[in-house]
């Protein structure tokens, strides 16, 4: 369940992606806008698509980047906001400001 003080992100439905040898390519299918993601960001995208919980992603990112958990948490947050601005991910309706939101959907993992 989403605790108070939490936000939930999901993948924009029109985003498709492919993992290549050294990069991940994301395409917005309607506008045909594309992004090349590599390095730590590509790893984060991988973990997101595996539906890892945020704490696990933060721990893995901390190990990968050799930074503290807190710095990794901030880095994750920053990239999510960047991707939200780009239209790659979006905040699930009702969770942007802590409104009662889509909790049942999240609990069921849909």
């Amino acid at each position, binding site marked *: 369940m*989403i*605790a108070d*003080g*939490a*936000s*939930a*992100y*999901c*993948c924009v*439905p*029109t*985003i*498709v*992606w*492919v*993992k*290549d*040898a*050294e*990069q991940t*390519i994301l*395409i917005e299918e309607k506008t*045909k*806008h*594309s992004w*090349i993601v590599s390095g730590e960001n590509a790893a984060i995208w991988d973990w*997101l*698509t*595996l*539906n890892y*919980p*945020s704490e696990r*992603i933060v721990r893995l990112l901390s190990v990968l980047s050799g930074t503290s958990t807190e710095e990794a*948490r*901030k880095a*994750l*947050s920053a990239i*999510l*906001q960047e991707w939200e601005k780009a239209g790659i991910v979006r905040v*699930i309706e009702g969770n942007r400001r*802590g409104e009662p939101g889509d909790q049942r959907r*999240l609990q069921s*993992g*849909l």
Partner: protein
Amino acid sequence: MANLAISAVCNQDCSYCFTVDHLEAGKRTVDHTLPADGRFLSVDAFEARLDFLARSDVREVRLLGGEPTLHPRFTELVDRARVAKMGVVVFTNGLMPENALACLEATSADQCTVMVNVNQPDAMGQSSSHELRRETIRRLGRRALLGFNIYRTDFQMDFLLPLIAETDCKAVVRLGMAHPCLSGSNQYIHPNQYRAIAIKIVRFARVAAKVGVKLDFDCGFVRCMFSKEDFDTLQATGANVGWRCNPILDVDLKGDVIHCYPLARLARLPLTPETDATSLRSAFAERTRPYRQAGGFKECSTCPFKAAGECPGGCLATTIRRFRHTPFHLKVAREAVA
């Protein structure tokens, strides 16, 4: 180059056929209870297609289907193309009505090429039709050019050489590799199988060259499926080797234009009195551009052949089928977000 679909019906049911996403299932087999309007291109619409080719500076009419020779007015369409002083290319499975065969037989070889797609005699119930096809090819003689589609790894092409010798058709084999339509509902070759196929192609090219038969590669092959030694061998045999994936432009019965049959679901553009092949190709190139950053293999985006523009990374339908959407959800603490 642009292909005109004139028939939605076919008298074969090849498992690798990449028209399955485009031709409605009920129209793929001959069903004479259906009205002809939906199954065959009208003569008026054909004239409009000829206008499109003329304003696109294309001097060749390429007829395909389904099986184009099943069009009830096939001979009239060929005559109209000849009146328009256009060369005619027909993509057929070789099992054509007598009037269509007689019409093509009466057309000079320098104005007409009949690309006869031939399956292995033991495949898909082909043994009975193989004799009919052989007779068609024999009558077409130098107008006929054999095409062979590879859709499984245990293929054999050796039967093509005596067929060419017996029928006196062109001493060329147009080699295709079965690619997936976007739905993946046809039988096709997976990129992991390319290398195994390449070895057999090179072996056949050597044998074919000894009797003066050359290979001509259709679209979708990739450079890396052949080793340097393989590539040198192919060149030594005179094979027309190519690594292509461009908008061919197939104009369907409804007047819509598609990139090619495998990509029929990706986009369709209407054929209007103003459009020409160049503008349509540009539009398709723009729509497919982001996908072309990738290729059929995960290594394609860092491949030197691709970077140099030598190889596009294979069939775009294969590439697009690598892309997926993943509906993930992630909870993060808001204080981290802020």
